[in-house]
Structure formats: C-alpha cells, structure tokens
C-alpha cells in the first residue's frame, strides 16, 4: 500500500466516522496544515454525503434556538476581551459595573433586531469596523460607529493606526445641555476597567492625538465606548452613564461601504 493510499484511507475513515477519538483528533489537527489531507477529506465528504439523505429529519425541541443564541451571545461577549479568538488564556471578567461589553463584531444589521437594547436612555452602541489600512494606501481607516438608538449612528470614530490619530465626528448626536460625552477605551493590557480617552469638546470633537499613548496593536484589540456624563466628564474616572464598548476586528471594505 502506498502512502497516498494510507492517507486516502485515513481521510475516508475519518469521514466515515470509524476512527477512535485520538485518531480523529489527530486527523482534525493535521488537516489544518495538510492541504492534501484536507482535500481528500472534502472529496470523501462529497462522495458519501448522499448517504445522509437517508436520515430522518427530526425537529429539535422548541427552546434550542434560544439556547444557541444565548451561547453565541456569551461567546461574543467574552471574546471581546480576549486578545485573539484562539487565545483563551486571558479570561477577563466583563461585568464591570456600568460598562457592559457587547460584541461589536455583530454589525449594524444585528442591532436592528434588538429593540430591547435601545431602551436605556443613555445607551450608546459602538459598532467598530476595521478595514485593511496598512497594505492599501487608499483604504479607509479603522472606523467605529456609535449608535445611540437603533436607527442612526450617533458618532463615528476613525483611527489611523499608523499615526495613531483619531477623529470623532458626531453624526446624529447633538451637544446636550448640562451633559458631556466621554470616550473610553478598554483593553486587556490596560486592566479590567475602561480608561478615559477624553471628554468631547463642546463641538463634540476630541484632540487627534488623544490615542497617541497607545500602541497600534493595543488599539486593534481595544474596545471603545462613549458614555453620557455630568459636565466635564465622569467624576469617578469610570463611566457612570451606560456605555457599550466595541471591539475592533478586521473586516472587509465591502462591509464598511455597505454599512456606513
């Protein structure tokens, strides 16, 4: 038997399901780096797939979808503070007081389905989109959209990771009498609590160098939020109004143009 035969039979038995737990784990690991094995597995999946037509369809219990959605919520919430999707070593607790960390990976479209989230008076959602900046000079910078309700973006934040300069622009947000807006950053490297980036000026701008103390790797993994505070900013050094933080994550430019 040749090596090719061996590999092909390994792929076939993996798909058929007859390998033991260790062998299965080994094949699952190996296929990630072994294109030949992966291709053989996919070929076997295709060959045997019609057998699956024989399976009787059975409706799951009525609450399973809700369970799945809760699980996805949990994962997306915790993954926001992990530096990388596969890095599970840092399990920072997200439930720090007023600041609720929400998975910003879920884009604008998702928020439209979540009326309940828009009820808190001071709620501002930050949806952060990140676009490839370094390899294409004319690509848009990293962009965050802060939504005050489900309808319109309240603010947009763009960050040029090379120069670490930021630009906050109000979209529908208006200056509030006796209230200030405050921008926050949260990242594993900064500890569990958000840090103030700055209190927005009366024209709702911020100095472009407000993020210059943070390195670009940190910024890429950071979450941002905007909260509504007493004039001059939070007296406690932490958000006192509800702030929802978003996580920067890579996306394609299509998504940016589609959603902005």
């Amino acid at each position, binding site marked *: 038997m040749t090596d090719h035969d061996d590999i*092909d*039979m390994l792929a076939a038995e993996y798909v058929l399901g007859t390998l033991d737990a260790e062998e299965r784990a080994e094949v699952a690991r190996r296929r990630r780096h072994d294109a030949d094995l992966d291709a053989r597995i996919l070929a076997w999946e295709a060959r045997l797939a019609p*057998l699956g037509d024989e399976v009787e369809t059975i409706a799951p219990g009525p609450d399973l979808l809700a369970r799945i959605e809760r699980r996805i919520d949990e994962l997306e919430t915790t993954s926001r503070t992990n530096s990388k999707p596969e890095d599970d070593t840092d399990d920072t607790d997200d439930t720090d007081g007023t600041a609720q960390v929400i998975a910003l990976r879920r884009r604008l*479209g998702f928020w439209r389905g979540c009326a309940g989230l828009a009820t808190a008076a001071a709620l501002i959602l930050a949806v952060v989109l990140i676009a490839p900046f370094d390899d294409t000079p004319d690509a848009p910078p990293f962009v965050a959209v802060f939504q005050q309700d489900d309808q319109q973006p309240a603010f947009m934040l763009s960050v040029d990771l090379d120069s670490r300069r930021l630009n906050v622009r109000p979209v529908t947000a208006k200056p509030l009498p006796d209230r200030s807006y405050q921008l926050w950053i949260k990242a594993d490297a900064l500890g569990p609590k958000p840090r103030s980036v700055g209190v927005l000026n009366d024209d709702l701008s911020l100095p472009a160098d407000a993020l210059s103390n943070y390195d670009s790797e940190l910024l890429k993994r950071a979450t941002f939020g905007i909260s509504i505070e007493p004039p001059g900013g939070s007296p406690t050094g932490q958000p006192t109004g509800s702030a929802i933080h978003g996580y920067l994550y890579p996306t394609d430019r299509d998504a940016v143009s589609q959603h902005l």
Partner: protein
Amino acid sequence: MHLGDTSPTPPTPSDHLHNLLRRVAQHDRRAFAQLYASTSAKLYGTVLRILRERGRADDVVQEVYVTIWQKAAQFDTGRASPIAWMAAIARHAAIDELRRQPRAPHEPEEALAHTPADAPSAREHLEHEQDAKRLHACLEALEAERRDMVRLAYLDGWSRTDLATHFEQPVNTVKTWLHRALKQLKGCLAP
C-alpha cells in the same frame, strides 16, 4: 422548510441556504434564525441518530450551530453544498461526542431497520439526485455485510470496535473490509 419543496424552480433550496449562509457570515442574526429553521431538523436528525439521546443531541446541535455561526465565512461554495457542509459539521461533532463517551450497547437490528435497503424516493433535495443515484448504485455493488458496515458507520456512528463486535470479526479484519469497501466505492464513483 424549503428542503422538502418538490418544485425545482429557482431559487433552489441550495441558493436559499447559500444566501442565508452569506448573511450569517456577516453576523446577521435574522438570517441565522432562518438558517436554523431551514436546517435544524436535518441536523438534529443526523445527530440524534448517532447519539440516540435527546439531551446529548441538544448539546451537540447547540455547538454545531455555534460553529456554523463562527465559520459561515469559511463556507466555500466550490467545495460543498450548504447543507452538506453543515451536515458534515454535525456528523463530525456527533461522532466526536460518541467517541468521547460511547453509548450503551447497540441494537443493530433496530439500527439497520431504519436504514432503507435501497435509494429512498423521498430524498429531500433534488439537486444531488445524480450523485445520490450513483452512490446508491455503487453501494449496491458492495457485498451486503460491507454495505451494512458503511451505513452503520456513516449513519449510526459505529466505530471499528462496534462493527467488530456485531460482525464477530477481529478489529483488523473490519478495518481491512472497510478499506476494501471504501476503495471499491471510490473506484465505482470515479468519473
């Protein structure tokens, strides 16, 4: 559930699922709920047949849909139909779970009883009818025991050891038979 739709007019069930998957890749929760509605009975049936316990099937199907949510962007149209891609995730998850914790001894007659002996007319989708016919013709060409082995493994999650016990053969013999059966199938299906 569009899979049972007998009308072949566009959009095909596969297009429908493909659109949903594309939207799920964009983290569209509404599309995800629709995808679940369209596919969960198929995936649940697949997993439950292997695990035979609703509690375990619930847990596995939950993780399967989380995986689909996370990996929708990796779905490659060129390599599989949407339902085949999802069913493969479900089967692997169910078999992994079964290998981690095998269930009580099998009831082989029961397992084979709900395995149709030949191609069922009530197959769900028409798109892969040709492939299905060819596979079933090729399965028919196998010796009966080897055909049963392939079905019991693929559909019911039987391991080599399970098969060895039931067919009263050493595990190595089962492995040899399986390899012969698989090679024969591959040759038979080759264009």
